[in-house]
């Protein structure tokens, strides 16, 4: 690439496919009576997830200055709308994640996020599969939707039980599967072991003309999902994969203000001990939970990756007009 390359990195055909995809999504939700909304990209608060780095900017209105975050996801703002009585909603927006660049990542990307009031996780998974099937055709015709629990899938692919951390078994797995570096990298961090093995050895096998809906993640990886009512070891969370690519992540949304506050505090403490940029709890979001978030399930889908699949491209840059290096 020349230094001052001005052309888009995708072709005009991809621009047209993107426009078609957006029209199909809007049509899908209009038919299902889900309301399209917009929430701010510049926010006064942001998520505390220690694995997500944010962008900050400074709002200047002399003599005042205010730090504003570019949102890593519209989740908190959308939940405030739900608590205010919006009913089921969706949004197509940009999200920003600092330091994430690669074949499947651009620090600025397009998210489709939606929330369904009174849906359970299973209903939402069905809706996700149905929408994704529609958007992938005709390039990729899905023959089968596979719903599987995280633990079953993990065990099938590795012989390891992810619910139980037995250091010698994980070590043995690493040594016999050409990832000896995992031993020093993961040490005794069970979640790190799971992330390492899942992203290196399981996710790449989730291929073919199939949609994989992996659900019932471990409680330690609940993120913003509820802990399962019957089994405290697992969370009501799923992820969706096609062709080895992670397309999205869904939750039965945590509505308990006290528990949400606790999770924020744990993540803030982790940020402190690991010298990550500090953030404070989003008080407006917590106030909305206190006022009452209706029971709902929500999911976020990375539309650039979906477009990659529906145009048979291999890198996110192939479907973006101007990825970071040309932005």
């Amino acid at each position: 690439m020349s230094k001052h390359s001005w052309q888009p990195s995708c072709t005009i055909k991809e621009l047209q496919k993107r426009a078609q995809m957006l029209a199909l999504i809007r049509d899908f939700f209009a038919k299902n009576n889900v309301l399209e909304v917009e929430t701010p990209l510049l926010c006064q608060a942001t998520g505390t997830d220690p694995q997500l780095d944010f962008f900050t900017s400074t709002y200047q209105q002399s003599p005042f200055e205010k730090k504003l975050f570019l949102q890593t996801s519209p989740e908190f703002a959308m939940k405030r709308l739900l608590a205010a009585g919006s009913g089921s909603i969706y949004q197509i927006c940009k999200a920003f994640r600092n330091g994430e660049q690669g074949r499947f990542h651009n620090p600025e990307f397009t998210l489709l996020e939606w929330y369904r009031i009174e849906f359970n996780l299973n209903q939402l998974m069905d809706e996700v599969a149905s929408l994704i099937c529609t958007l992938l055709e005709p390039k990729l015709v899905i023959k089968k939707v596979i719903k599987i629990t995280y633990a079953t899938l993990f065990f099938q692919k590795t012989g390891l039980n992810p619910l139980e951390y037995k250091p010698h078994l994980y070590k043995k797995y690493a040594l016999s599967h050409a990832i000896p570096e995992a031993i020093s990298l993961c040490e005794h961090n069970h979640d790190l072991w799971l992330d390492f093995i899942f992203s290196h050895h399981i996710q790449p096998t989730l291929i073919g003309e199939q949609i994989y809906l992996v659900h019932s993640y471990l409680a330690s990886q609940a993120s913003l999902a509820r802990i399962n009512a019957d089994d405290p070891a697992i969370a009501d969370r799923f992820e969706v994969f096609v062709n080895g690519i992670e397309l999205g992540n869904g939750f039965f949304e945590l509505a308990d203000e006290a528990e949400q506050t606790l999770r924020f505090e744990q993540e803030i403490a982790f940020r402190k001990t690991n010298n990550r940029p500090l953030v404070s709890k989003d008080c407006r979001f917590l106030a909305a939970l206190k006022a009452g978030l209706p029971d709902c399930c929500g999911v976020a889908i990375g539309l650039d990756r979906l477009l990659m699949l529906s145009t048979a491209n291999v890198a996110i840059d192939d479907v973006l007009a101007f990825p970071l290096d040309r932005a």
Partner: protein
Amino acid sequence: MATYSTNEFKAGLKIMIDADPCAIIENEFVKPGKGQAFSRVKIRNLKTGRVIERTYKSGESVEGADVIDIEMQYLYTDGEFWHFMVPDTYEQYQADKNAVIEAMKWLKDQDICTMTLWNDVPLSIIPPNFVELSITETDPGLKGDTSGGGGKPATLETGAVVRVPLFVQIGEVIKVDTRSGDYVGRVKS
């Protein structure tokens, strides 16, 4: 030596892995939606030539390897060492068999090749992409046969054996692509 963060990883970067100098072939940013980010690199061990994969935590730092590529002229071999010279400075280097093993069958006096040095010690030699060598041995094929098919083996002055068309004869000089080992054409003298 400098250290490099995984964010600086790119094809061609030379880093130390398990005390061996390695070159990055490919770097992939791997990140679960919720969870730790990794850098998965494909690397070539510059000592053994082996290609392996290795994962780092995103943001981790790795020691760089003092590895450089220099153009050198091949001089001669004494059987134990192969001697090279930097044309500009006349500085000489002797490489052992391990370093020249891949290149030795293409090396002809005076040819310019690329030497990879690690801490100023020769690690490997890359021959020129094309070499011109004379044929020392081959079956006398049918004269005038210009049909492409088949061909025959021919031994070159450096000992390399390549497949040549039937019409090519002993004593002729041919051009060979050292990356594939393929015959390219006859060189008119």
